[in-house]
């Protein structure tokens, strides 16, 4: 397995996109910290980056990479290697490359300018988001044969998680304004890893007052060690479930 991961990593590194992504993140993060006097303010801007760019690059890069590696996968499948090993190596290779890019691009500036729990939350959730979207990309590519359709699905899914989901939640809220909906909102946020990360990070930043009336409910649910444990647990599930479902499909796939 180590050898397969090694060759996948080498292959990804030959591809300059990850490097470009890292430099982009680095420039953004340093820039944001330089412009603002208060590191907290910059952190909020970085959070936006974290919640949009990281998932976008994670899902699109991974989807394209796997489609473009079909020859590589075919070559490996005919060798005495377990299919599960090949698929997990894909996941690990992609996750590792994107996480390293994020850790250097965003993690480094955060550690320099804001080495506190808020900064740390940002780094951990950024890495988790990278892994989640690699996992979702694996899920998409194994179920959709056609490359164009697959990339389209990735983009739509990203759009759904970053924008549409919030729209739907707001719509539901306005429709059911008379009812006590706090629990429903908390429940819904589980269905979107980006929302969950946003809530966890904002609560850590002590600016949850900005989130209005429901923030009290969120506080109640998401702070305290059990709340954190549950929310991180759910983020981990967002990695594990798509990964396992895609592995199950990949093992039986005709190549």
């Amino acid at each position, binding site marked *: 397995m180590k050898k397969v991961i090694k*060759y996948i990593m080498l292959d990804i590194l030959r591809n300059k996109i990850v490097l470009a992504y890292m430099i982009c993140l680095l420039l953004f993060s340093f820039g944001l910290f330089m412009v603002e006097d208060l590191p907290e303010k910059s952190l909020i801007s970085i959070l936006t980056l974290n919640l949009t760019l990281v998932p976008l690059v994670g899902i699109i890069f991974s989807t394209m990479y796997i489609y473009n590696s079909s*020859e*590589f996968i*075919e*070559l490996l499948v005919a060798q*005495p*290697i377990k299919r599960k090993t090949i698929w997990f190596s894909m996941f690990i290779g992609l996750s590792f490359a994107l996480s390293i890019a994020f850790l250097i691009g965003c993690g480094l500036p955060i550690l320099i300018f804001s080495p506190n729990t808020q900064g740390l939350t940002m780094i951990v959730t950024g890495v988790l988001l990278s892994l989640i979207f690699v996992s979702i990309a694996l899920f998409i590519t194994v179920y959709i044969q056609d490359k164009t359709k697959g990339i389209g699905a990735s983009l739509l899914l990203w759009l759904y998680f970053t924008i549409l989901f919030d729209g739907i939640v707001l719509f539901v809220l306005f429709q059911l304004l008379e009812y006590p909906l706090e629990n429903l909102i908390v429940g819904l946020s589980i269905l979107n890893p980006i929302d969950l990360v946003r809530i966890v990070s904002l609560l850590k930043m002590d600016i949850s007052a900005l989130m209005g009336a429901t923030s009290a409910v969120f506080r109640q649910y998401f702070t305290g060690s059990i709340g954190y444990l549950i929310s991180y647990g759910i983020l981990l599930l967002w990695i594990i479930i798509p990964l396992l479902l895609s592995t199950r499909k990949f093992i039986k796939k005709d190549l």
Partner: protein
Amino acid sequence: MIKIKNINKRFEKLHVLKDINISFEAGNIIALIGPNACGKTTLIKTILGMVIPDSGTIEVMDKSIQNQWLYRDQIGYMPQIGKYPDNMTVGQIIEMVEDIRTKDDKNLDKELYESFKIYDILNKRMNTLSGGTRQKISAYLAFLFNPKILILDEPTAGLDPISSLILREKILKEKENGKLILITSHILSELDDMIDRIAYMEDGKMIFDKTIEEVKSETSETKLWNAIAHIMNQNNN
């Protein structure tokens, strides 16, 4: 060495393998022939575990291959169209496959390295290679690990006559070493005097599986190609 029992495979509505039963023994060269899209490549891919059959069993060296992967250690596969990562060089591909497959006892067969002059193209990227050159690399990788079973899908399709001849000699030599060699081809003339058995497929069905002598005596034709044509006509009538 390879036993295939009641294999069925459907690709959505298309029934590509219809209840295939056949077995292949060591020390033989077997030609798997048939018109295009008759299921030859799919059958080969089921043996390699690249395509999973809907029903039936396949045994390689007396062990079912279902959910197995180590048996592929004993198989060298030369695909019809060698697909390799475009951005890697020939040297990198060879090095990678070697690294992934080699066990402690290094027993590599590098004969084709010399005869195909692979050392000349080590630094070329895969996407710059012609079809024939890819074939040479596929052939080299198939023979490299000294496998007991060689599966060659249209091995000479893109090769020039000299390389074809080299590969042919190599195949005969490995047969002498007691290996099972399974070849698909529709160019029968070049197989004529080297094969032991013929398995003929049509439309997903195994029509017959006979030794070369049986085929020739049954049809009283001396040329293999004529003999096959004879049988094909019989089947159509």
